[in-house]
């Protein structure tokens, strides 16, 4: 039965997918090929839509694939299957954190982790910038600045520093500027 197959497949992807969208997409790709649910062209389209629409990429892709295989209910089934392992594991972890937060072991672990997370945030900045503000890499000389992206980046940076602009306002502004600049130039 297709619904059971969907929930089981996406449950497994939910367990194996450490690190979000960009890890989950290759997992989805191999599952889809194995089950012959979609052609590779259809899958490429789904990944593109998932990245360009609001929401987590992994959830978007799961919903889309579920719909294409078994309609709207299929989409919901795939999504629920995928987030079920998270729900169980994160609730257990959050519960343990509340219980042992003050212990020296947890405190010392957190003191080690926090600076590493700052490094990962710095990486996220580079990652997002490499898909908008610049492209290519310095290593092979293919580096180039995307002027339109750089203009939007600078505008949002300045406005956020000078005013208390809400991130949602900043995102709406970026979307509007992006559409205008890319249509005009």
């Amino acid at each position, binding site marked *: 039965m297709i619904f059971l197959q969907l929930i089981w497949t996406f449950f497994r992807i939910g367990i194996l997918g450490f690190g979000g969208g960009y890890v989950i997409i290759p997992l989805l790709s191999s599952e889809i090929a194995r089950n012959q649910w979609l052609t590779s062209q259809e899958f490429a389209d789904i990944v593109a839509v*998932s990245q360009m629409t609001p*929401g987590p990429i992994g*959830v978007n892709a799961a919903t*889309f694939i579920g719909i294409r295989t078994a309609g709207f209910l299929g989409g919901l089934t795939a999504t629920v299957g995928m987030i079920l392992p998270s729900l169980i594991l994160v609730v257990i972890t*959050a519960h343990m954190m509340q219980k042992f937060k003050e212990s020296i072991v947890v405190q010392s672990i957190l003191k080690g982790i926090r600076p590493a997370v*700052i490094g990962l945030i710095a990486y996220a900045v580079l990652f997002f*910038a490499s898909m908008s503000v610049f492209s290519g890499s310095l290593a092979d000389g293919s580096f180039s600045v995307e002027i339109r*992206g750089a203009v939007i980046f600078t505008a949002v940076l300045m406005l956020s520093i000078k005013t208390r602009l809400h991130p949602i306002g900043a995102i709406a502004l*970026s*979307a509007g500027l992006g559409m205008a600049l890319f249509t005009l130039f």
Partner: protein
Amino acid sequence: MDQSLSLPGKIWILFSTFFRIGTFTIGGGYAMLPLIEREFVTNRKWVTQEEMIDILAIVQSLPGIIAVNASIFIGYEVGGILGAVIATIGLLISPIFIITGFAYLYINVQDMEVLQGLFVGVRSGVTALILLAGIRLGKKVLKGGFAWAVAAASLIAVAVFDVHAGLMILSAAVLGFVIYGLILRGRMS
């Protein structure tokens, strides 16, 4: 944590806040960091800056989607299992309906120049927002040479050597435990 609100009041705030986050976050994961920070750290003060960093570390080290894990974690802290479920539903309502629209209408986004512009525009703006959030959180955390060294090492490991973020966090956890839990134990208390 704000004690003045009743549980239904908190649950409603969880739902509506994660609904906004789900509606306005394109790209998932770190793209929602600035929104979560503004709503839960700056405005509501339900989460401190340190807790925000801890949550980021934990949700990345567990299986699953970072944004979903974060909604479950914060939802559970605020309103138990019900809070976790409601926060996640709030996060996912908009994306599910938007994706359903695309799936049934057979819209080919790759041909739509306007959407390409929107995509690059949002990414550019989000780059600036994550940078600012990173600076705010970094000011809190990067005190002393050890912290700077770990931050630099994790950036280089992930960016240059392609080390998985979860593995990086695990290594930092072991390092923190050895240094602060074993070697400097006496000094912490």
